[in-house]
């Protein structure tokens, strides 16, 4: 797939405020904007941008969670590659003092036991909200470009990752009336979550301006070619004025 994005970095609000002492307002900002606020965040962004996992798993959190230790000076942080969602989380951080009851690793374990280590719904909502405008912008910018490319090259399949989230293939058949085919991969990027149907609907609305939803049809091919195993395709007539 062209330009498939890798993963998003984020932190739980509990970690930012309780462990790193940031103000609650910091939770609403993308983590990359906070690198100057704490060395742990700077190290997290630098290292987990390059690689989503570390080399040292935190044994105390197994088997519930495969989290990795991030060393940042005397701090130890717990990071988790949430593969399904395409997110690497900074879950917790604490001063490391081996043998002390106040050490980082027993602290991480206690957080997990108390149900306070993993991301909350509010944490997830923040990540989704930070990603969302990118997709909305792509509906208005990327989709018309991809559509135009397909119309300009009848019979040829054009492919792109819309807003970095959804892989789409588009083709146009210029017969007596033009038919536009849109094949949507049923996987939300980054990660491996199934694509919610609402996303199909918004993509179709962008690909078929002025066409009622009732006039769009399912089809099991794209311009005469087989679909990929994880694609669903739609087609609709395009008015000559839009070609």
């Amino acid at each position, binding site marked *: 797939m062209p330009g498939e994005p890798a993963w998003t970095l984020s932190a739980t609000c509990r970690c930012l405020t309780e462990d790193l002492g940031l103000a609650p307002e910091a939770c609403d900002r993308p983590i990359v904007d906070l690198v100057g606020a704490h060395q742990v965040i700077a190290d997290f962004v630098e290292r987990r941008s390059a690689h989503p996992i570390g080399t040292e798993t935190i044994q105390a959190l197994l088997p519930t*969670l495969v989290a990795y230790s991030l060393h940042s000076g005397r701090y130890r942080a717990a990071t988790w590659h949430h593969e399904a969602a395409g997110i690497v989380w900074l879950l917790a951080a604490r001063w490391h003092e081996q043998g002390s009851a106040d050490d980082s690793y027993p602290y991480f374990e206690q957080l997990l036991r108390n149900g306070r280590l993993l991301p909350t719904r509010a944490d997830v909502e923040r990540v989704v*909200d930070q990603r969302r405008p990118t997709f909305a912008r792509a509906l208005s910018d990327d989709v018309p470009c991809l559509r135009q490319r397909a119309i300009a090259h009848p019979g040829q399949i054009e492919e792109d990752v819309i807003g970095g989230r959804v892989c789409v293939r588009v083709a146009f058949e210029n017969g007596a009336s033009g038919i536009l085919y849109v094949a949507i991969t049923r996987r939300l990027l980054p990660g491996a979550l199934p694509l919610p149907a609402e996303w199909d609907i918004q993509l179709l609305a962008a690909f078929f301006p002025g066409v009622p939803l*009732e006039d769009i049809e399912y089809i*099991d091919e794209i311009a005469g070619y087989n679909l990929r*195993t994880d694609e*669903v395709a739609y087609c609709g007539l395009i008015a000559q004025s839009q070609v």
Partner: protein
Amino acid sequence: MATKSKPVRIFADDDSALDVLAQLRRQSRAQVIHEALAEYLVNHRKELSRLYSETQQALASGDFERLVRASASARDAEVDAIMATIPS
């Protein structure tokens, strides 16, 4: 590579998309996905039609904020999907 295809109208009352898709069942993974999606679309046709219209109108008027607002249901669906993958 070419295939013979029969288009299936999504919301046609008199042409059951599910009936046609059921005939295709077990032939390929894509067709099973197709069927599940069709069922979802039919069962949620009202809100999805609203989302479709709202998105088209927001795009036509170039109203970006309206476009983001229109996608609230898509946003909630994504949050639900992510929450379901967090270990408890």
